[in-house]
């Protein structure tokens, strides 16, 4: 009996010892972990890049006295938290404090209203920050009221300065992506809204050769019909099926992009800016042999300003031309090859839409005019149901579509432009990026979409002589959004402090493996006329001293922080107590049992 008691004595001393050690360790750790406040940072689950960035941000912000709690959400939930259900709420209220998210832009034009204007504050629009800046709002509004790109550009450059100074968003980098392809493939434009597959050529082959190329991407297309919204995969195909009034072309003069006529032969805007007359080419045919006329153009544009169609461009088109019910004759067709736009007001972002082949590609009125607009989404033109494929005027048409497996494109014999060099494109769907990359390395495919090329693999692939890696700067940006409704983040100095504490160059080098570039701001650098290089992420070095300076400006005193006693580690001690008791009791039991057995 005595022996058993002594065993429990041993157990008790083990317990006490562990308690003392763990308590002192925790206190020591807590001494170095003193924070002014805690913020949450949310990002998309499964995104390894954002995950790595989030952990870096957490580590760095700890150095300036900010505790960051990380949380991830699946895409649908993330959207809901940031833009809809959780809009304007802090993390604790079911919203967010800071989030990582990237934005993709088009190179055709710049329209900041939907993402930066105060009228677009979520849940009414896609400005989740709750940023209200009268100067910026005014600049956006003024820029919308002129068709002149130079004038607009000046206003956007000033707008960019406002975003920079007010810092509702800490810009981190401009993403770089890479296409991988056979080295013989040439003239492949990486920017998807500019790319024209009919311009792609193959070195060592002539136009007489029968050439088939396989282009692999991660998901099947949807909404392949005109007018309806297109995602990044659908653009790959849709942009080759249709032509819009204009197109976007690379401009070597500015190293940027500009509008050029496509179906339009010429256009003229009246001095008051309220009427635009577009002359059409008279040699344009749909892939079923029917000639394109101004009727087709009118129907397409009008469909965008009919709510029921489901166009995501409704608000821009309706702002410029008015809703179809309100101004039915805003688009007129005096003859078969003339279209006249009567604008409700000058609304500059409208013009570039006319160069979007995916959503503003001209639809065939002889097929769709009879169909109620709300039924367009279910029509075979949009779904390819029953083996009937979209009819457009573009260089290619779909000849076969096996859902989730592949789409085959062959030249449209009625195409008004030059006959394409490549006679057959097979768009193959490979959802898993690693498998797609293996197929590329195994030469089962000829071109691999950028979304299937992991950044970490790029330098390895570049060393292979049997593959060509086409790296390019993607129009868009990645960064950290601040919730200005949060009482702490509402202070601009705190936002700047956080911004200075982020090691952007380190992230570009180590996390992105060089697949990103400095110079990120609300305007992508591709849009030369609007981009202001003086107010971008490149102007914010990693500087903890400066970050602390800003924290002090915001009223946070580091002296107070270091003197502040570390919080007593109640939870830690309670945890240790439970574990210690368990360890002590079981240890004591084992020892006691042994001793009893010995006796």
């Amino acid at each position, binding site marked *: 009996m005595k022996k058993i008691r002594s065993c429990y004595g041993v157990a008790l001393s083990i317990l006490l010892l562990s308690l003392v050690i763990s308590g002192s360790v925790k206190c020591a750790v807590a001494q170095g972990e003193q924070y002014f406040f805690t913020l949450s940072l949310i990002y998309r689950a499964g995104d390894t890049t954002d995950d790595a960035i989030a952990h870096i941000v957490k580590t760095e912000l700890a150095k300036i006295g900010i505790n960051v709690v990380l949380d991830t959400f699946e895409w649908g939930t993330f959207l809901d938290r940031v833009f809809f259900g959780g809009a304007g709420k802090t993390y604790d209220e079911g919203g967010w404090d800071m989030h990582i998210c990237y934005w993709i832009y088009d190179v055709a034009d710049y329209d900041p209203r939907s993402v930066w204007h105060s009228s677009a504050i979520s849940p009414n629009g896609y400005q989740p920050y709750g940023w209200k800046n009268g100067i910026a709002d005014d600049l956006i509004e003024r820029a919308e009221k002129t068709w002149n790109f130079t004038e607009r550009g000046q206003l956007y450059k000033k707008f960019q300065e406002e975003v920079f100074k007010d810092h509702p968003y800490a810009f981190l980098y401009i993403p770089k992506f890479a296409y991988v392809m056979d080295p013989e493939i040439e003239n492949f434009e990486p920017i998807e809204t500019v790319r024209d597959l009919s311009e792609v050529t193959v070195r060592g082959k002539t136009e007489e050769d029968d050439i088939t190329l396989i282009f692999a991407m991660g998901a099947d297309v949807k909404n392949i019909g005109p007018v309806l919204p297109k995602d990044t995969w659908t653009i790959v195909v849709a942009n080759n099926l249709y032509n819009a009034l204009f197109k976007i072309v690379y401009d070597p003069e500015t190293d940027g992009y500009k509008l050029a006529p496509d179906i339009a032969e010429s256009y003229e805007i009246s001095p008051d800016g309220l009427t635009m007359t577009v002359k059409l080419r008279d040699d344009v045919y749909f892939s079923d042999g029917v000639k394109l006329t101004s009727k087709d153009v009118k129907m397409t544009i009008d469909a965008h300003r009919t709510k029921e169609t*489901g166009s995501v461009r409704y608000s821009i088109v309706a702002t410029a031309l008015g809703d179809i019910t309100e101004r039915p004759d805003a688009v007129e067709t005096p003859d078969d090859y003339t279209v006249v736009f009567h604008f409700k007001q000058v609304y500059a972002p409208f013009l570039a839409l006319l160069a979007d082949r995916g959503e503003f590609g001209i639809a065939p009125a002889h097929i769709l005019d009879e169909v109620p607009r709300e039924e367009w989404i279910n029509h075979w033109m949009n779904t390819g149901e029953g083996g009937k494929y979209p009819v457009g005027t573009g260089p290619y048409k779909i000849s076969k579509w096996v859902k989730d497996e592949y789409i085959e494109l062959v030249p449209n014999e009625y195409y008004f432009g030059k006959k394409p060099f490549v006679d057959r494109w097979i768009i193959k769907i490979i959802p898993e990026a690693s498998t797609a990359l*293996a197929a590329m390395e195994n030469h089962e495919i000829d071109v691999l979409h950028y979304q299937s090329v992991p950044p970490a693999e790029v330098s390895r692939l570049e060393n292979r002589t049997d593959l060509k890696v086409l790296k390019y700067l993607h129009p868009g940006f990645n960064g950290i959004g601040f919730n200005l409704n949060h009482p702490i983040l509402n202070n601009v100095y705190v936002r700047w402090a956080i911004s200075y504490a982020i090691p952007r160059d380190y992230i570009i080098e180590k996390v992105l493996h060089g697949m990103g570039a400095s110079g990120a701001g609300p305007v992508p650098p591709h849009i030369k006329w609007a981009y202001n290089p003086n107010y971008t992420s490149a102007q914010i070095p990693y500087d903890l001293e400066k970050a602390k300076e800003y924290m002090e400006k915001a009223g946070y005193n580091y002296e107070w922080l270091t003197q502040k006693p570390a919080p007593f580690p109640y939870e830690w001690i309670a945890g240790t107590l439970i574990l210690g008791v368990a360890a002590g009791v079981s240890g004591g039991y084992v020892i006691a049992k042994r001793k009893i057995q010995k006796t």
Partner: protein
Amino acid sequence: MGLKGYIIRRLLTMPILLIFTTLFIFILIHLAPGDPVQIMLGGNPTVTKEVIDILTRKYGLDKPLWMQYLIWLGNVLRGDFGHSFVLNAPVITLIGERILNTLKLTLTAQILAICIALLLGIIAAKRHGTLIDNIISALSLFGYSMPSFWLGLICIFIFSLTLGWLPSSGTQTLGVNLSPWEALIDELKHMIMPVTILALNQSTFLFRLVRSSMIEALSQDYITAARARGVSERLVVYKHALKNALLPVVTAAGLNFGYLLSGAVLIESVFGWPGLGRFTVQLAFRRDYPALLGIYLLIAITVMVANLITDILYAYIDPRVKYGD
């Protein structure tokens, strides 16, 4: 008579079961946060609230949940399985386009798995406790623990990239003209990796069943009696013991039927196989309620029918099983 009555009774209870199952799935799907319309349009900042509202109304998502379910149920009873939000096509068409691919993959794998499991299970049971048994058992445990996703990638690396023997993905070589015979060979080549990995994964589990039930069967008195009567060992094993040992295997295979339809999600993804499993995952991420419900309904029906068939098979395999009063 008893069996017939039993079947009729089972068939009659099926609709009630289906209603409960689909209701449960309906609630589960709607419990996931996120609005399909927002996901559909998400990321496009030019969409106005007006457009979102129109779409919400169009898809009937503005109605209360119970009404949405009743509408769906009513449509199903009239033979209309709904329209996918995401792909704007009838759910039945979408399933039809993919189900064959999934069945090709999973049925072949299932048959292969049963063959492997029976063969190895009998060998292991006959040599119970020997080195061969231990080796096979250890290998099966290894195979069972191996994630199929990872195994798939490793196989692609070895057989496609390094050796160049097999194609890495898809169901056929694209961009070439093949004769029907060549096309068949080509398709079989594409099937080798996904089918084998799926079959290995399935067979390890079935193997353990076959092995343990064979060991049990072989130790029964009637086996000893048969041996004592001088019945040949082959007959003892394959006729007397195997017939009894098959019962749990049939049960397992029947229960697996739902899995066959929902497909091998991971394998389909890794090998770019355009089947139902991969499709279901895409739909779940996009909260495509009607399409998901349609697929789950199909799976539920299949599982119920498969279970019924399994139960009927029981009566034939095991004469002791009697249904009815």
